[in-house]
């Protein structure tokens, strides 16, 4: 048979291996393969779909513009400004801000950690309801909570008035202003981040591991210390950093509590003195702090995902509290009273009082303004986040990580800073749009899109790539596959991302305050304006609607975090 034996189905002269067509220009070929290999290594071994890459890259670059331009402006502020800041303002502000972050995180840990353990691992009566209630304080922007606390505990507040009526002479309570009040209020309304992450980690914990420790001769506290704690530690750390992150970014509370931090100082520079260079310089230092915290948070969050059990999983039998359930119930009751009961009661009380003076119909306008701008921002952010989330989930490599990082840069900008940065950017490049709704919406998108990226990415990771491959093999193009397979399957993640952006945009105060078009008042602004003048009752109706609108997105978030694992998951 000869040659035919070696190559039974010859290609004739067109056969590349036979004719050496591929070897004609070996250097060209090697160079081409090398370039392509370097390129696809950037994207985790799969070349990304071109138009998706273009959209993702464009979005990521746009998201990074505010931060980069802020830095440019800060560096251009001049030597004198920096020297001034360095010696006069910085030490005090830095100390105050760090103290606030630490105190808030510590207080939030005191509330969130025991609460998470009680509702996930014990037989606490009513734990299923408490699981949800524990996360509900997220509906409150912290500044609304501080208005409530100042009205109750502040000078000539409800408590002092009440005591005066009982005692018969004026009573002075210790001041609520300053660090203790700020830290307490921020902790009361941000501890749910820590609580939710910890509870989710505890719920995902595989009891088999604890049983293994038991068979290895460990008991009680030793198991907790050597098995349980290390396994939930990344989630706890991520949650704690999340609280610290919110404490750093908080403006409303520290302004009302008259505690000087970076955010209030920047706000003052902007509104009081209008010194944008100085504000930019201050902002970059605050942003450096938030960046540090965010980097840490991302690291821990990634590790927390690693520790989640796949495969066989068994729930832990609840610890019996016995007589300890009474102190436990008192603790839970106290936390819920302070973070949920008191503010809700006060807002209802203000609303009732405000209604006696007649209903202000402009309230409808505020509701519409809030809902429409938050929904617009949420929709834009959800859509723009998708290509970046898709690349991060399917083409995980240095390239997609870089885009991801760029897109996250807005997250490091606290509301005050994002307002400043957007002012710079729009006045510099799009002055025609300055003062329109779009500046405000753009600020929301820059600041909160990372939340959407996160939820979409985790939804996409759960969709098996082979399902998309199957669609390709059945004759559908990449785009048709995204439309017919990927998007329908990612709906839960899209909804969660949308509601997170909606919730945060709804609650955002400083960016709204500084960037809203004239006359475009949102609910948050309408809680703030009367409250900062001391007319608390007028804050009631807008606050009530603000928290009512925030309930559905918070429920979606909680449902996703604390989804109960079913028996099928174990199989």
């Amino acid at each position, binding site marked *: 048979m000869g040659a035919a*034996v070696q190559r039974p189905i010859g290609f004739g002269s067109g056969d*590349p291996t036979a004719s050496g067509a591929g070897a004609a220009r070996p250097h060209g070929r090697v160079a081409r393969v090398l370039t392509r290999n370097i390129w696809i290594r950037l994207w985790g071994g799969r070349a990304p779909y071109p138009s998706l890459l273009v959209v993702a890259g464009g979005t990521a670059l746009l998201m990074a513009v505010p931060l980069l331009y802020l830095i440019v402006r800060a560096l251009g502020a001049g030597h004198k400004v920096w020297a001034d800041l360095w010696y006069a303002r910085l030490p005090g502000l830095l100390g105050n801000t760090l103290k606030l972050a630490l105190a808030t995180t510590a207080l939030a840990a005191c509330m969130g950690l025991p609460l998470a353990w009680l509702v996930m691992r014990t037989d606490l009566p009513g734990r299923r309801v408490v699981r949800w209630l524990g996360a509900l304080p997220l509906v409150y922007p912290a500044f609304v909570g501080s208005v409530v606390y100042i009205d109750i505990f502040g000078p000539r507040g409800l408590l002092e008035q009440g005591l005066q009526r009982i005692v018969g002479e004026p009573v002075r309570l210790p001041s609520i202003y300053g660090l203790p009040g700020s830290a307490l209020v921020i902790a009361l309304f941000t501890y749910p981040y820590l609580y939710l992450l910890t509870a989710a980690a505890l719920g995902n914990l595989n009891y088999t591991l604890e049983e293994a420790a038991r068979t290895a001769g460990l008991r009680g506290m030793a198991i907790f210390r050597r098995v349980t704690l290390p396994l939930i530690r990344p989630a706890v750390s991520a949650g704690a950093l999340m609280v610290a992150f919110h404490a750093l970014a908080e403006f409303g509370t520290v302004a009302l509590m008259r505690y000087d931090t970076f955010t209030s100082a920047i706000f003052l520079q902007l509104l009081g003195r209008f010194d944008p260079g100085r504000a930019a310089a201050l902002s970059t230092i605050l942003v450096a702090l938030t960046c540090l915290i965010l980097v840490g948070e991302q690291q821990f969050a990634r590790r927390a995902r690693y520790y989640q059990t796949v495969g066989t999983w068994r729930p832990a039998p609840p610890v019996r509290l016995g007589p300890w359930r009474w102190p436990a119930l008192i603790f839970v009751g106290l936390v819920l009273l302070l973070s949920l009961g008191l503010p809700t009661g006060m807002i209802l009380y203000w609303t009732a009082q405000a209604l006696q003076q007649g209903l202000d119909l402009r309230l409808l306008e505020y509701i519409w303004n809030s809902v429409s701008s938050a929904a617009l921002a949420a929709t834009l952010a959800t859509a723009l986040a998708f290509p970046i989330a898709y690349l991060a989930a399917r083409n995980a490599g240095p390239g997609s990580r870089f885009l991801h990082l760029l897109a996250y840069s807005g997250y490091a900008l606290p509301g005050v800073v994002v307002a400043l940065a957007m002012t710079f950017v729009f006045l510099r490049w799009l002055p025609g749009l300055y003062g329109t709704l779009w500046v405000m919406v753009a600020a929301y998108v820059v600041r909160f899109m990372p939340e959407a990226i996160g939820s979409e990415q985790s939804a996409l990771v759960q969709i098996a790539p082979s*399902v998309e491959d*199957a669609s390709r093999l*059945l004759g559908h193009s990449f785009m048709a596959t995204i439309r017919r397979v990927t998007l329908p399957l990612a709906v839960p993640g899209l909804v969660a991302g949308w509601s997170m952006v909606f919730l945060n945009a709804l609650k955002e105060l400083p960016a709204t305050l500084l960037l809203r078009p004239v006359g475009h008042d949102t609910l948050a602004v309408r809680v703030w304006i009367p409250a900062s003048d001391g007319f608390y009752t007028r804050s009631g109706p807008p606050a009530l609607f603000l928290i009512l609108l925030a309930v559905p997105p918070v429920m979606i978030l909680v449902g996703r975090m604390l989804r109960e694992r079913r028996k099928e998951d174990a199989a």
Partner: protein
Amino acid sequence: MSQPNAGPIPADRYPLVIRGLTKTYPGASRPAVQAIDLEVQPGEILTLLGPSGCGKTTTLRLIAGLEEPDQGEIRIFGRTVYGPGVRVPAERRGLGMVFQEHALFPHLSVAENVAFGLHRLSRAERKQRVQEVLRLVGLAGLENRMPHHLSGGQQQRVALARALAPRPHLVLMDEPFSNLDAALRVQMREEVRRILKEHGSAGILVTHDQTDALAISDRIAVMNGGQVERYPPGDLHRPPHGLCRPVCGEDQPPLRRAEPDRAAAGRDPAGSHPLPGNPWLYPRECLCGLRPAGQL
């Protein structure tokens, strides 16, 4: 199968011809697939058999168009789908594929899954074709079920029906039985063979399980280290006799035991290493030994 003496079949009628296909994953030190040549004859079921990491799944994904080769040429029914200057995307190669995890669309019913590749047909034609294919795989009546309400075997059948619905002449199967329990596995490989033959499609099966390979295929190509080993040169229709043991892990039963006479014909009775000499696998004859009630 075609007659032994019918003469060579023209290459453009072969469902698949591969020449010099090479793929190195970026960052890997050696190629996952190295200069392999392969062809599939009309109506034939070919198995790529080998231990994990041998490059068999990569080969399948290269054929499907889910990965891009570094060099080489792939022709499907005489049409070059990958070659110098040619890159046909996966969706235009006209192949069917059954995935390891079935990869059914979880948001679509059985009928919608099967109809997914029939977007070019009219509604009525689509409906008719879905019925036809579901009957072929024995799932008529389950059209409206959702995938997660099906048993493993049923999911497998839906995956096969979905792959066959657009009438591909070549079906790729990536470890399709690995998620099934032992009894179902035996049943499904019979079924898959019957269905493919009834449908008249050629098939490529990738597996590390030699029992699967022997039960379902007309021909086996053993892969190791990114290369096809013991791929028979010469006349494809008259393989020499003799049986060797593909080495896919020491725990697999040496098939020679199934037929002692042929074991004697093999040249290494100790048999845990690749046998020298003629490396032909001829499953049809193995089946005699493995399955006394078999077809031969």
